[in-house]
């Protein structure tokens, strides 16, 4: 039981999904490029057994802060190249066959390279695109220590997305799958797949200042296969559904995005900590 808890206490596969959340909108022009800094936070001290809450008498918990540096280059509107570099700061309290143990780690995580291939169609007051994105996650994060940031594996991701936009409405659908490779020290993180849906409105903008806002609602569905018992990262098997608001403001070539994801449904394999709600802030610029 305790070993099981130690192994599965902390979960979800890395936060880097296959799609590019803000940079999906831009740059869509040839030789355009963009950079973005995104801060992401999640954590909880709620213990789950399957779908049910469980008493957490020993005070187990896990909190993870990740700061992403993201870049995108657009060759032309149908081909982009993206890179996402995380800096992870994580801590947890776990059971290791004795009193609860505090563990923490910080450092560079796994770099994700993506190649979004897009097919646009422009109509009078509407633009839409299908995107197919192969991605590669490289094991640049440390896989050593008692709370490794990475499992040390090379992973492959694929996503299929569709977005449509009018002057007043925006919608995005993205389905992704990550195939996890074999990691170092015998670690094997489970595969994952998910669906993201963003529906929103564009309630205000100014042609004079080239500024405006988007208000959107997000629905995120996640499934993670269980990792093997050698895995000591935050990975764990689970199904989750998040939902929450997204606020986006832009002016000229600058964009700000704030997102809150409320954990509406969660089922963990065996027993483990809840992932909790998620909050993120990002600032980006395109050129």
């Amino acid at each position, binding site marked *: 039981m305790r070993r099981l808890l130690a192994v599965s206490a902390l979960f979800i596969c890395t936060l880097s999904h296959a799609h590019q959340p803000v940079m999906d909108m831009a740059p869509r022009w*040839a030789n355009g490029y963009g950079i973005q800094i995104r801060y992401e936070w999640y954590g909880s001290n709620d213990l789950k057994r399957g779908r049910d809450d469980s008493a957490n008498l020993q005070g187990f918990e896990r909190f993870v802060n990740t700061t992403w540096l993201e870049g995108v280059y657009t060759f032309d509107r149908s081909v982009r190249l993206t890179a996402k570099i995380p800096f992870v700061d994580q801590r947890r309290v776990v059971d290791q066959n004795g009193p609860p143990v505090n563990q923490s780690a910080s450092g560079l995580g796994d770099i994700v390279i993506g190649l979004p291939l897009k097919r646009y169609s*422009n109509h009078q007051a509407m633009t839409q695109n299908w995107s197919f994105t192969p991605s590669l996650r490289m094991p640049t994060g440390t896989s050593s220590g008692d709370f490794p940031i990475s499992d040390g594996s090379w992973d492959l991701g694929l996503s299929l997305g569709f977005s449509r936009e009018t002057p007043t409405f925006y919608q995005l659908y993205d389905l992704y799958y990550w195939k996890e490779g074999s990691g170092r020290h015998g670690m094997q993180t489970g595969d994952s797949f998910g669906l993201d849906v963003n529906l929103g409105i564009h309630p205000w903008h100014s042609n004079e200042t080239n500024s405006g806002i988007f208000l959107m609602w997000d629905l995120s569905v996640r499934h993670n296969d269980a990792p093997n018992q050698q895995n000591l990262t935050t990975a764990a098997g689970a199904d989750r559904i998040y939902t929450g608001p997204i606020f986006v403001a832009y002016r000229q070539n600058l964009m700000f995005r704030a997102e809150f994801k409320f954990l509406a449904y969660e089922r963990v394999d065996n027993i483990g900590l809840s992932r909790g709600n998620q909050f993120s802030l990002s600032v980006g610029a395109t050129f």
Partner: protein
Amino acid sequence: MKIKIFVAFILTLASNAVIADDYVVEVHGLVCSFCAQGVIKNISKLPFIDQSRFTKGVKVEIEDQKVTISVKAGERPDIDGLFEAIRSGGYEPIEVWVVQSDGQLSTYVR
């Protein structure tokens, strides 16, 4: 009073002269000004654009899918170059109009 009328007349002439150098392009898919940065960037680099007006000589109106450009006095726009700048910005140019001195649009004949 005469001076005021004279000043108003001169201002009207000046205003009309500026309007006469404006052109409007219908652009399909142009629904987000943040995403249209490339259109503004590409058009503003064209040699006949008067960058002193609008945003570097370009105004994007996403409600009507229109891009207004300000052309330097005495110059004619290179429509092929203009359309290529818009396509390279990710959108589809459809038609060009000239803004007449009374503000009305007329079809531009190359």
